[in-house]
Structures are given as structure tokens and as C-alpha cells.
């Protein structure tokens, strides 16, 4: 399939996913070509490039940034896709052939884009890497600035984070529900009446998410008294994650279709038959980095609450479950040490939750404010990775609690339990196991599932089987 873009409205999260992850090419539609031809018609439509922009373009040679690893090629594809929004709108003053060249880059290998050293005025430095393979020797005046200016990297980073965040949240809800069931926590804390009493749509979404997995659970065999705070507040904490994910999705949705070039050509205005050039600070995307920072903090808080649930499950005096969740008759210390292991992930996640602010450095008197989106993106990645580690441990411990007490969860939780046990079978005290490696595989599988949206259960006979959380 091919994604055809005709207007800014074609720059959606769904199309981003198709291009970035699905590997689909992009074609510039006829409507877009007409608009671009008209926009580029007045010659150097945006007039003389500003001195500092032209200077920046000259300095923005590929390879200016280095270190810190490289962007996922899917994100580079997404950046190329996002780049096209301002071009096809006709406001950038570039010819259709230039946009077609950008789109054609998606048909080849993606260039390496270092993650470090990319916080400069605007996004010209990373864009120079992204567009390294673009023929530029015949560009008209203003076209190079249009290619390097604006904020397409922020849009792509936000879109990438948004897609994985929504999936990660769904998986977190399923594992928290598994933990609730394993702990035998009373269900009142997730009652439908709270939807209205709390009155927040995000908390309602979290409550519904938990109830979906706990559907059919009865009061029998649950603890008669209230559960620890970490179990009762989980819908509110997950509600905050819902809010943070929604904010990143909004930032991505808005940014993907924004025309954020530093110089935009405004046509079709009354009294201005020749149009006019408007110079702005569009290249500083002011909404993505705060949204990513808020998401990092939400992951860190969720990681802490998950760790508290791990501790509650592992502590017999609190849970009423077998000591260290050791199966009857089995030797060893069960899942006890995983509680310790969770500490490191939580602390790393909290460190990653330090917000990315506008950088203190001043490059020069004109480029006196720069966007910190790359920093915010890296911190969100790290916080998410740490959350996956804690969620893996919570899933392991919940699975073990059910195993040690000979219980089977409700049908809505069976898929997630199958997924967990396919990678980390219960500790039954038999055979030699590398519990560290098993835990690492589960963490990595959760990371992969965040991208794909599916918890994949390896099946030796039939190959991988995809399970969406909540499937029954």
C-alpha cells in the first residue's frame, strides 16, 4: 500500500504508523502538487532567506551531532513523513519535485541520525542527517531553508512515543489487574460508582480498563479488609497515565499537521495578491517536550506503585500468601529477590523523570532559545524501559502468587497470564533456570509489545501467536 498525501489533514497518527512502522511509501497527490506549484509560483516565494537561517543551513552538515546511539530507522521514516506536511501545504514555497524527492527517500535505506548533539536552534541539525541522501545541488532559493526548518523531528518523536505509550498503558492495565487478582484485593476500589464520584474522564478510562480484566470476579475468597494503598489508588495513578498519554497523542496529532517553517508563505489573502512571507519561531515546538516530560513522570510513578505491589505480594504478613510465594514443597527463595531487583528500575525511572526544560546554553545572540525535544525523548524512552522492567517483575510475581496458591485467574486475564508464563514459567523448584535471563526476556517482550500493540506468545509448533490484552 501507498500513503497518498494531498493536504495537511493526511498527516495523521494512523498514516504515520503506516509509513514509519508499516514501511509503506508516500506519494504526493495531485491536489498537493497543484497547491505547491501555486505556492512556489511567485519565484523565491518567501523572499530572501534570513541571514541566520541561511547560515544555519550552511552549517547544518550531516554528522554535526554524534554519540548517544541512533534514532530507530522507523522514527527517521516518520520524520521524513512529517517533513512533508509543510511542503504539501504550499506554505513552504517549494516545488512539487522537491517534495517528491523527500518522499522518495522513504524507498531507500534510512540514514543514521545520532541522538546526541541535536539540540540547536530549530531542528536543522538532525534534519541535515535525515536528508543526507537528498539531492540538493539544484535547489531554488529558499528551498533548502524550507527543507531544514520547522519542527518535523519533534512531530515524529511525539508520534513514535504516542503510539508505543498507548500500547504500553494497555499492557500495564492488564498486568495491574493480574496483580489485583493475585493479591485478592477487594473490588470496591474499582467500582463503577467511582466513575461519577471522581468525575474525571481519564480516571474513568482507567477504572473501566481494570474492570474489563476483572469482569466476573466475585467477592468470595478475597480479603475481607481493605488492601494496601498501592492497590486502592491504582485507578487514579493509571488515570494520570491516561492523561499523559492523551497529551502526547494530542501533541503528535497537532504537530504532524502543523506548518512550522520559520518562514511561511501566506497566499489568497484579501488585499495581498502577491501573498506575503511571515517569519515566525515555528521551529521551536513548545508542546512536545513538556508532553514527553509529563509522560516520563507518569511512567516513573507507575513504576513505583508497581514496585509497591510487588512488595505487598512478596510479603506474607501483608498478602496472606505463602512466604516468598514459594510453591508448596518447592525449595529456594521464590520471587523474593525480584522485589530488590525492582528498586533499581524504579530509581532509574525517577531519574529519567527529570523534566527537559529550555536549555540554558546560548548558541549565539540570535539563536538564544533552543528546543530540548531530543533530550525529552531520550528520557521518556529510558523511563518506559524501566517501567517495562518493573511490570515484568510484577507480572512474574503475580503469576507466581497464582501458581503457589493453585488458582487460575478469570477468563479476561488468561491471555496476559499465558503471555507471561510463555516467557517466564512459574518457579516450581525443578530444573536449572537463569531467572535473570528469563526476566530480561519478559521485559524485552513488553518493550516489543509496546510497539506492536500485541503481546506475542511464542508457540514452538505454530509460530508466534499474537494476543491483545483482554482477548478471551
Amino acid at each position, binding site marked *: 500500500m501507498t500513503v497518498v498525501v494531498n493536504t495537511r489533514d493526511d498527516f495523521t497518527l494512523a498514516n504515520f504508523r503506516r509509513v514509519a512502522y508499516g514501511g509503506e511509501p508516500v506519494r504526493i497527490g495531485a491536489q498537493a502538487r497543484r497547491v505547491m506549484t501555486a505556492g512556489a509560483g511567485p519565484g523565491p516565494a518567501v523572499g530572501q532567506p534570513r541571514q541566520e537561517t541561511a547560515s544555519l543551513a550552511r552549517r547544518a552538515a550531516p554528522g554535526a551531532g554524534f554519540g548517544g546511539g541512533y534514532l530507530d530507522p522507523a522514527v527517521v521514516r516518520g520524520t521524513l513523513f512529517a517533513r512533508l506536511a509543510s511542503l504539501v501545504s504550499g506554505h513552504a514555497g517549494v516545488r512539487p519535485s522537491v517534495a517528491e524527492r523527500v518522499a522518495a527517500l522513504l524507498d531507500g535505506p534510512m540514514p543514521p541520525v545520532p541522538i546526541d548533539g541535536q539540540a540547536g536552534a530549530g531542528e536543522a541539525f538532525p534534519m541535515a542527517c535525515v536528508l543526507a541522501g537528498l539531492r540538493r545541488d539544484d535547489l531554488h532559493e529558499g528551498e533548502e531553508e524550507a527543507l531544514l526548518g520547522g519542527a518535523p523531528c519533534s512531530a515524529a518523536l511525539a508520534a513514535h512515543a504516542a503510539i508505543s505509550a498507548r500500547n504500553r498503558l494497555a499492557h500495564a492495565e492488564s498486568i495491574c489487574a493480574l496483580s489485583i487478582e493475585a493479591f485478592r484485593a477487594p473490588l*470496591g476500589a474499582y467500582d463503577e460508582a467511582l466513575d461519577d464520584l471522581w468525575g474525571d474522564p481519564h480516571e474513568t478510562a482507567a477504572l473501566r480498563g481494570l474492570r474489563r480484566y476483572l469482569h466476573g470476579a466475585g467477592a468470595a475468597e478475597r480479603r475481607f479488609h481493605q488492601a494496601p494503598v498501592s492497590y486502592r*489508588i491504582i485507578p487514579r495513578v493509571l488515570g494520570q497515565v491516561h492523561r499523559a498519554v492523551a497529551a502526547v497523542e494530542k501533541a503528535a496529532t497537532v504537530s504532524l499537521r502543523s506548518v512550522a517553517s520559520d518562514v511561511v508563505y501566506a497566499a489568497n489573502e484579501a488585499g495581498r495578491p502577491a501573498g506575503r512571507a511571515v517569519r515566525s519561531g515555528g521551529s521551536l515546538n513548545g508542546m512536545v517536550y513538556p508532553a514527553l516530560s509529563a509522560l516520563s513522570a507518569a511512567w516513573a510513578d507507575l513504576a513505583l506503585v508497581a514496585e509497591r505491589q510487588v512488595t505487598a505480594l512478596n510479603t506474607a504478613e501483608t498478602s496472606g500468601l505463602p512466604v516468598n510465594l514459594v510453591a508448596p514443597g518447592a525449595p529456594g527463595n521464590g520471587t523474593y529477590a525480584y522485589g530488590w531487583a525492582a528498586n533499581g528500575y524504579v530509581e532509574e525511572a525517577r531519574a529519567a523523570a527529570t523534566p527537559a526544560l529550555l536549555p540554558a546554553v546560548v548558541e549565539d545572540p540570535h539563536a538564544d*532559545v533552543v528546543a530540548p525535544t531530543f533530550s525529552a525523548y531520550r528520557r521518556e524512552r529510558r523511563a518506559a524501559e524501566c517501567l517495562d522492567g518493573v511490570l515484568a517483575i510484577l507480572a512474574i510475581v503475580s503469576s507466581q502468587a497464582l501458581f503457589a496458591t493453585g488458582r487460575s485467574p478469570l477468563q479476561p486475564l488468561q491471555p496476559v497470564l499465558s503471555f507471561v508464563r510463555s516467557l517466564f514459567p512459574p518457579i516450581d523448584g525443578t530444573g536449572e533456570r537463569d531467572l535473570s535471563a528469563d526476566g530480561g526476556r519478559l521485559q524485552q517482550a513488553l518493550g516489543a509489545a509496546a510497539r506492536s500493540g500485541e503481546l506475542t506468545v511464542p508457540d514452538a509448533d505454530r509460530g508466534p501467536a499474537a494476543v491483545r490484552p483482554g482477548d478471551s
Partner: protein
Amino acid sequence: MTVVINSRDDLTLENYRRVAVGGESVAIGQEARETMAEGRADFLRLLESDRTQYIYGVTSSFGPRARLTIPPDQQRAHARAFGFRRGNWARGFGGGYLDERVVRGIIFARLANFVAGNSKARPVVAERVAALLDGPLPRVPLDGEVGAGEVLPMAHVLQGLRRDDLEEGEANPLMNGSPVSAALAADTAVAARHRLDHAEQIFALSVEAFGAPLDSYDGVLDDLWGDEDEASALAALRRYLEGASPDGRASAAVPASYRALGRVLGQSHRAVAGIEEAARVSLRSVTDNPVYVAPDEGHPLGRAFSTGGFHNAMAYPALNALTAAWADLTLLTQRHVTALCTAAVPPAEGQASGPAAGAATGLEPVLGGVVEEARAAAMPTLLPAAVNDAQDDVSSPTFSAYRRQARAAECLDSALAVLAAQASQALLHAGRQPPRPLQNLLVTVRAIFPPVEGSQSDLGARAGDLAAALSRSAVSGSAPFGTSR
């Protein structure tokens, strides 16, 4: 005037402002009294149906001893002992005290638990809470108030409440839930909207003083950027710059701090909207633990069950976001001051361009520390690492987030004061008058911080006066910088 409360829908941000900032009293309306009386009667029927059923705090002990049951014949005495014991739980100390207006706001927010009948309490209990607003208010220390839920600060707030006749189920709705988070969010939201307006006025004055081109705030960007918060910021800047002459403005490269103004202010709009939403939702939320839900078809006696409502998870992240937005605005303010001090301001017609130094107030060095303080305050408040006990294993960090926001706001006010003084000075130096929408602002700024002539020793004190005036106006929304200016 008196605010009459009949339902949760009366727990609005506007009514909060009337009670907390305006000092108005609260009366419990007839509708609310009837609802509470009905809820109380329903709850007692549920309780009497089986006094051995588990209802936290009513038929059980509290906190880490939640699994201990209270014999039926001791449950009333248990309710009264709870009230006294919790009252003596006012343990936090140090760090100064909450402003009295915030304590009023907490008492106002406390009523959301009661008025819809979910509290299990008699109407008289809610009326006693409301009556606290008519007397002297207790002092609530800022330090030592972070625990599971908000029992610690509530113990201070309700010190003056009569509790010797409390009945079963009436102590929890007083102490449990999260009215403190609601009030801290509301107090911040009210001031934040005003503070943002101050920032937009002063940044517009800076744009005019620098002579920055106006197209960075052009209406065409509203659609091209496509974000309602950035559109609001751009509209505000255009409103204050309406009538500004496009002639004689800087034609050479303009610092990014002027061009990106609409986008950075847009983020502040988003953060202010976030705290307003958190306040609106939290003020009317029923967050009691246990909560009582009225009878329905499947539950003819209603239900009372434990929840995590006492943990407000939306206020502190919203406060964090606002703090970060203030820190970024503070940095942007410093950049503007630097630009004004180092760039030649376009001279008035017929006048020669003067040296840049003549446009400086001498205040610019103070901003380095202010910016760093604001950035330090922007370190996020996360769920606390400390664990009180196995049952109370997660605490609520709203107090910490509130204090950091207040510190960042204080820093922003200081930076805005310096920028306002600097812009005023630059305009004087250039012999320019701002457009009409900014003229009153300029008059106000110069009344507090007159233009600098020669060497003056009290510049810091006058800048401090200007910052203090901005802070006061942020709380009240009135003169000298508010909309009623």
C-alpha cells in the same frame, strides 16, 4: 455575600474564589441538607443490617490496623475516639504556613464529600465544617504534611471542629479524601491565569521595546500551527500589540526568544488549562474512604466500600507541568532582558541611535540566580519514596508540588518585574510610546519603578516592589496589573 451549596455542582472554581479569596461565607442549602439526611438514614439501615460487615473505620480500626474489627457495642465510642485521636495527629511543623485563603479553600473543598449524601454523615456535621469559615482559621504548617492521603494536613485544618458527639461513619468523611489537593490546585489555578496575563502584557511590552517584527504573532499562524493554546497566546499578544506601527522595527535577525514567544506562551496556556481542569474536577469529586453509594436495584441498602479516593493523582502532575512552564518563561524573560540590553533599540524619528548601554537598567545580572531557582523548582514532584507502613505504602505529594510551583511563580514574577523595568527603560531611551493597549501597563510599571537616571542605589528595592505588586495582583486578579486596572 454567602455561597449556598446544594450539590457537588456548586463546588466550582468561581465559588472557590469567592470563599477563599473573597472571604465569603458558605451556607448548606436545603436540598443538600435533605440529601445528606436521606443518605445518613440509608447508611444507618445498611449498618444496622449487619454490624459485623466490614466498613473501614466504622466496623474496623484504622490505617495499618485496618483488619482489626470493632465489636458492635463499641462502634460509637470508636467513632468519637477516632475524631479525637486524629485531631491530635496534627504533627507537621516548619516550613512556614499555608496562606489563610488556602485554608479557607480546603474547608470549602471538604464539603464535596458531604453534600451529595455519600459521606454517611448528618447535615449538622457539614454545617459545622462550613461554620469554620466564620471563625479564626488554624495555622497549617507546610512541612511534614506528606503521607498516605491527606489526614495530616486535615488534622490541622479541623482542629477547631466540635467532634465529641460524632456518630458511626462521621469521622472518616471529615479526615479522609483529598480536599487539600483540590484546594491547592484551585488556589494555584486562580493565580496562574492572572499571572499568565501579566506575562503576556509584559512580553508584549518587550516586543514593542525591542521593535521586533510583528509577523511572528500573525493571525495566519493560528491555523498553520493548529493548536488552540498557541492560538490563544498569539491572540493575546496581538491584542496587546494592536495599533503598533509596523514601521521602524528591527529588520535584521531577531533573536529566537522573540520569534518563539507564541509557542512558549502557548505551552503556559496549556499548563494553566491543565491546572484549571485538575481544580475543577477535584473540587467536586467525592473522595471519601469508605464511600457510601445510595441504594439501587441490586443493593437495596446501598453500599459502603473502601477506595483510593484520598490519593489525588491529577493535581501534583498538573502543578509540576505549570512549574516547568514558569521556569521556561523565566528563562525566556532573561533572554529578552539580555536582548534589550545588548541590541540597539530603533531610535525615534529624528533622533540618533544611542548606545545600547543607555537602555539598560542595571538589573539584568540578578536574573541569573532567579532563572536557576525557577529551574530547580521545576524538578518534578513524584510519588514519595518513603513508606510509612505495609498498609500505607504510597503517599500523596501534592504539598511538595504546590510549594515548588509557588517558588517558580515567585521567580517568574521577579523576572517579569525586571523585564518590565527593562522594557520601560528601553522605550524611554528610544523615545517611543507603546501602542494604546500597553500604555496603562507602562504607566503602572513606571509608577513603581521609575526610569533609571544616573546611578541609583535602590534599584533592587524598587524591582522587588514591582515583583511584589505582580504577585499580589496574580492572587487577586485586580489592580495594578489585573483586568480591572
